[in-house]
């Protein structure tokens, strides 16, 4: 990859209102704006001016309710990723646009057509974060009662991507293996006539953690979004993925490892910590109880929040697997911790992702040290709340990264493949 493209890649993960469950209540957060086109156009331009590779939207295929009750204090604007990225495509020229889409509750023909459309309207900037959907309530929205077992979901995902690639390859005149249209999972007779995707197909992104997930990512992914709470964990993961890719005959540099990183920036270290504390405190007891309720599929708000967990009722009725839920709550049950105290602690956990709290200079140091250690190829930033934390990063940290020749000063090409240094599809 050319030096001018930089050795640090930045992605902006923009689902909802930000990383912290109570962040939407911050005085400078703009929770209403996420329903407006102007907001997406402005954020898209801001991220592009800061020379990020891409914007990513996560996705879910279930209502946000626990046992039928939708939280009242959590901000949950899960707008359709394709829609937001398509709106942003019209306001930007370079930044990549990555949509999270499941291979379990979709068909290759439709997903191929949608990414061809996104790649066309963005002129070569589409990426697909391939997920298999693990939430137990998702099948209910698609006429099914149970999730497909995990290893089968990954088998379907592999067959799905291969089949979708036949659609893209056919549309763009690339040589493809048409036998992939028929598999244990799909009996496709023919492809569709649709817009030629300028990149040939979207950049393939994955977030696999388990053995099945890592195997799939090593074979398929061109970039990986993963949690990495420490530099050591990041390095171990990156080394493993690069080794797996090499074993499969792939160039390890063809997979960019992009761990999530939440951030709270302050002018001084003390100010940053004060900001972090303030945003955590915006999550009140009920909000935290709703947050855990959603994570176990059981409505805890119907119980006295100062009381202990009604564990027998929970494991009998929770929507997530009872064994997992029981294990998760066991420390609270054993210690007699109250519902609200446990939930407060739970809502502050970073879900496996690192949280950086400090000054712009410290953040640039942090990022540089990870790159130097081979712990990642860049970061998927998860702003604490939107849009302020991202604005501060773009204004205060990006110039430091550019001065250190970590981050590109100019885009080296128009496509997401160019930003990732992937070269043209063959």
């Amino acid at each position, binding site marked *: 990859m050319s030096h001018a493209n930089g050795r640090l890649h930045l992605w902006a993960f923009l689902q909802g209102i930000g990383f912290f469950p*109570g962040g*939407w*209540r*911050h*005085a400078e957060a703009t*929770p*209403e704006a996420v*329903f407006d*086109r102007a907001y*997406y156009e402005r954020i898209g331009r801001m991220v592009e001016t800061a020379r990020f590779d891409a914007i990513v939207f996560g996705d879910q*295929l279930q*209502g*946000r*309710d626990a046992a*039928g*009750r*939708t*939280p*009242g*204090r*959590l*901000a*949950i*604007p*899960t*707008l*359709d990723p*394709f*829609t*937001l990225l*398509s*709106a942003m495509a*019209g*306001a930007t020229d370079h930044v990549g646009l990555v949509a999270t889409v499941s291979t379990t*509750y*979709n*068909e290759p*023909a*439709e997903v191929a*057509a*949608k990414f*061809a*459309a996104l790649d*066309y309207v963005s002129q070569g900037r589409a990426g697909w974060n391939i997920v298999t959907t693990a939430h137990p*309530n998702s099948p*209910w*929205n*698609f006429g099914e009662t149970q999730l497909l077992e995990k290893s089968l979901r990954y088998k379907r995902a592999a067959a799905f991507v291969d089949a979708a690639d036949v*659609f893209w390859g056919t549309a763009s005149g690339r040589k493809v293996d048409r036998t992939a249209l028929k598999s244990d999972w*799909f*009996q*496709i*007779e*023919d492809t*569709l*006539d*649709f*817009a030629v995707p*300028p990149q040939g197909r979207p950049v393939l992104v994955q977030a696999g953690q388990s053995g099945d997930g890592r195997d799939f990512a090593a074979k398929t992914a061109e970039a990986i979004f993963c949690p990495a709470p420490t530099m050591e964990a990041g390095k171990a993961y990156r080394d493993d993925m690069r080794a797996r890719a090499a074993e499969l005959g792939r160039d390890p540099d063809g997979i960019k490892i992009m761990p999530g990183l939440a951030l709270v920036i302050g002018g001084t270290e003390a100010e940053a910590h004060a900001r972090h504390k303030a945003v955590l405190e915006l999550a*009140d007891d009920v909000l935290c109880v709703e947050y855990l309720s959603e994570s176990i599929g059981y409505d805890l708000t119907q119980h006295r929040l100062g009381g202990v967990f009604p564990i027998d009722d929970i494991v009998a009725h929770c929507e997530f697997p009872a064994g997992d839920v029981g294990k998760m709550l066991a420390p609270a049950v054993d210690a007699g911790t109250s519902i609200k105290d446990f939930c407060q602690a739970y809502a502050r956990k970073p879900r496996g992702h690192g949280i950086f709290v400090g000054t712009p200079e410290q953040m640039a140091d942090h990022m540089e040290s990870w790159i130097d250690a081979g712990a990642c190829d860049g970061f998927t930033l998860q702003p604490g709340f939107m849009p302020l934390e991202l604005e501060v990063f773009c204004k205060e940290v990006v110039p430091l990264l550019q001065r250190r020749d970590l981050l590109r000063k100019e885009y080296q090409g128009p496509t997401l493949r160019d930003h990732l240094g992937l070269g043209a599809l063959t």
Partner: protein
Amino acid sequence: MYLSLSIDLAPEEIGAEGFKSFTTRLRDIDAAAPDLVILGGEHDGAVVPGRIEGLVNLPWVAGQITRAALAAALPALHGLPFHVARALSAIDFVSGGRAGWLPVCANHVAIDRAYGAAYAITDTDAPAKYDDFIRATQALWDSWDQDALIIDKARGDYLDSTKVRRVAYRGPYFSTMGPLNAARPPQGYPLLVRDLADLSGSSKLPADIVLVGAESIAEADATIARLREAPGTAGAAILLKVGGALPLEAALEVAGADGVHLTGLPDARAVAAARAMLPTTAGSDGTARARFGMAMPVNPFTQKALV
């Protein structure tokens, strides 16, 4: 009279130059001030899903065509209501309430083959699946009340939990639990457009806008009189297809028509010429519902709560 047309990506509009010409084409059409732009192709004068997927294309098009209502033509027999309801919610928000949808059965055999063996369906069964698809999608929009969102930072109230619910829709082809993980669209439901030449043309589910063809003024008069009484079309804006057997000049003499739909994927010049010939539109800029003078749909769950 309302003015409608379809646009689709032409096969030669590829590469950077092709993209530029597509963009210019859309802006020129915007300047010609149509009331409705359908994102879809055409086959024998009937609407078919376009060469560029309509739901993904629409939010981008909304940045080029800035005032007209925009309806995505999409396969009614292949899409999944959860995805479609979800996308159209976001689309309605980011287009300022200008969204519409035109589910069709047209071209279904080719699409069946691309979706796979499980999707094969006969023309006889297709209309029932179309109805089920519409009902399931609308049920998911009903999983949220129009005023469910509160967004009060000081009080910490984001939404009213009593205004979001599971709907547990069960139909012959689709079942879906809900709630949708997306708010009810600003228009309640995006406008439902129906092409009466489609296999779905005889549906009894109320449409907001219908496209109807006729070979003569007399036939158009008779057809429109019948549609004004029929359950699926009684409250709809009726747009007469012109450009084939019926020229635009003749359509102007059809008293009952609310507007015209220009067939043949016209260019901007043809749209501007038609605009100049048509009497001024009664509707206004703003949401698609406001433009076409349609009332907001009633949410049956909200109604129950009020009783």
